[in-house]
């Protein structure tokens, strides 16, 4: 059976919104990073869906998706690295406690 494009788009939008929500409300930096993953994947979902529906260049979308996954991985890696370093000097991973820099 074939899932109509609209459904996928709506789903990805929801996914994106969820991620965004998470980014805004989570205090734990790790959580935020994961939420960002959600957002990226929402975009991926779009890309795949479109590559399936579109005629012009189906493969490019999928390739893009793969690249995005890779980038997401690096982002997560760098992020976690920095979080660790931060934890080492500040003993916290909560955003509302890292606010030396303001105003």
């Amino acid at each position: 059976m074939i899932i109509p494009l609209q459904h996928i788009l709506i789903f990805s939008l929801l996914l994106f919104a969820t991620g965004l929500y998470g980014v805004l409300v989570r205090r734990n930096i790790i959580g935020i990073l994961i939420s960002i993953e959600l957002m990226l994947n929402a975009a991926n979902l779009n890309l795949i869906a479109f590559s399936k529906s579109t005629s012009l260049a189906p493969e490019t979308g999928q390739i893009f998706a793969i690249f995005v996954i890779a980038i997401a991985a690096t982002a997560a890696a760098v992020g976690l690295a920095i979080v660790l370093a931060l934890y080492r000097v500040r003993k916290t991973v909560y955003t509302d406690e890292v606010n030396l820099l303001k105003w």
Partner: protein
Amino acid sequence: MGIIESLRYFVPELILLGGAFLVFGTDLFVRNKKTVGELSLLILIVAACFCQMPAQPLKLFYDMFHLDAFAHFFRYFALIAVTLTLLISYSYKPLKGPYEGEFYGLFLFMAFALILVAGANNLLMIFLSVEFVSMISYLLVGFLKKDARSKEAAIKYLLFGSVASAIMLYGMSLLYGASGSLALPAVGNALFFAPFKSLAHIAVLFFFVGLGFKISMAPFHMWAPDVYEGAPTPVTAFLTVAPKALGFAVFMRVLSVVFMPSRAHWSVLLTALSILTMTLGNITALSQNNIKRFLAYSSIAQAGYILMGMAVFSNLGRQGVLVYLLAYLFTNLGAFAVVTLIGEQTGSDDLAAYAGLSERSPVTAAFLTVFLLSLAGIPPLAGFIGKYYVFAAAIQGKFITLTVVAAVNSVVAAYYYFRIVRLMYLTSASGPALPPAPRPLAIALGLMFAGVLLLGLFPGLFLSLIWR
């Protein structure tokens, strides 16, 4: 153009890439990190020597990388920026230690990434290169192992950046859906026709977020002050100039290739954002007491002026952006070079450290004064040429409100720039005379001073480079 024959035109980039690995390699074996720095400097210069202007625009790597005069200009831009930054950072003590070599290596990567950004002509390429730049920036910002502020800056930068690029990516995915292709020209053509005209209006917003983040355009600028304050000073210097400039570059490319049809529409938006940006930047800068934070806000305001050119987006406007960026490169890097120096010598980034500087170290004070005047747009200095250009563009495009607001803003700006001048010249010294600057930094200062003066006095030379 296929991969193999593309490589012919890709020599400088390859040199940088190879050079980066070479640096990392040597870093493992060489004890004296200074040589690593010199090596990377050498590599940059060599790369610069291999850059040559293509006769006509080239579509390298199946038009992933579009090498035209525009890209060429930014290639030089990136190389100059990195070189100067390295010169500045040689004498930056906090870097000293086992990891110093990596720092230089990362900068070579950064140079490479920036050039990619300049040439990227494909959504995928844009995403990748921008992310590449961002990743390295995160690392550089958080480079100081022990420094909590540096770490905090890094994490903020990372979170903000990732979210921004995620949003942009989502927009890209929509564009892909609309056009079925990732190549900018194709996307552009697709957006010409009906159902997607309105989509263009939506999609451009996602780019606003993603690239607005890079160029610290309000309201996507919030990260900038914190990050700039927390990062190591040379890195701050670099971040305020190069990634921002390249952000503008890719922004311009996207706008001109993809979104030209709906220009009337987004130029209104950009006008508003430009006003917002410069006003926010200037107003907030008024009461800063940390010089780095102060310059951070000032650089936001400067972005606002550059956005004037984007908003107009006439020929003159686009050239204005380039000229402004060039002027801004010398001026802002120069200012930060002085900040680095003073930070090193007095161990403080507070404005208070600048009291009576004209007596403690006259030459440095004079340099900083010139850079600040240039930022304030006083002729005959580089900053004035840039301002003049964007003003001219705005007047020509009949953006009267925008220009008037900008004029008022420049007065406010002039006031806070002169706060520092006042501190340096009109208040009495707060300490003994300072030692002379270390040679590399002195050289960098000299170069940038010359740049500011030359661009101000003989803009013709530089303009001829851009008008092509």
